């Protein structure tokens, strides 16, 4: 691994919101020509049942979460030439439209940034120990995992 790049990795699990502009600026180094950001937001409904929701609460496994995300980020910088990587994942109670996760990747060339960001999201979805519970006025319901997320990681195993 490029020594400089190691300094350009930021992984945060936090309750607070993040600012996409600020995070984009942090990813920008002299050689950076392209930045790709992924932002996940709380939808107003459950994907499986279409039932409307008011909020969701995210719990995680402190310690293991950071280790798993670090593993994924290290894999991505071995696979693609990148100039910076940031992963921020929020925990606690979030309302509809709130930002959940930020994955930002910068590189000299755009396709590396697109692929690395996509790769990190796919692996984060299946490996990082977070769990969502969706809430509305009447009930709370743990979100079920999606087979499509398991399937998504197959494209990186070719």
């Amino acid at each position: 691994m490029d020594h400089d790049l190691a300094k350009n990795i930021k992984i945060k699990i936090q309750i607070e919101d993040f600012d996409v502009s600020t995070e984009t600026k942090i990813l920008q180094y002299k050689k950076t020509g392209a930045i790709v950001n992924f932002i996940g937001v709380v939808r107003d409904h459950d994907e499986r049942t279409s039932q409307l929701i008011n909020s969701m609460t995210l719990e995680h496994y402190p310690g293991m979460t950071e280790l798993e995300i670090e593993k994924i980020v290290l894999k991505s910088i071995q696979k693609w030439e990148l100039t910076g990587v940031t992963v921020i994942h929020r925990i606690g109670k979030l309302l509809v439209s709130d930002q959940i996760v930020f994955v930002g990747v910068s590189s000299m060339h755009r396709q590396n940034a697109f692929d690395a960001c996509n790769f990190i999201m796919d692996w984060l979805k299946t490996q990082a120990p977070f769990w969502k519970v969706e809430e509305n006025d009447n009930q709370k319901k743990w979100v079920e995992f999606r087979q499509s997320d398991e399937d998504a990681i197959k494209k990186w195993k070719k």
Partner: protein
Amino acid sequence: MQIKYFSWIKEHIGKSEEEINLPHNVSTIEELMFYLENLNDKYKRAFEKKDLIKIAINKSYSSIDDKINNTDEIAFFPPVTGG
């Protein structure tokens, strides 16, 4: 041994973690799950859908056959749903 539970497994069991002394006849994850689910109905229900339970030993993904010892931190949780 420290055991942690997350998501609906935690809710079925009614606690997020506990300290147990590993019984002498328990040396793998599979044996630990068998031991726990026979403690009472709460554990039985928590461990009912074994296909859906992920295991970590010392914060690293592990499988049902993996060996464990009394100083390990074990975690049981459903498939992850973050991101």
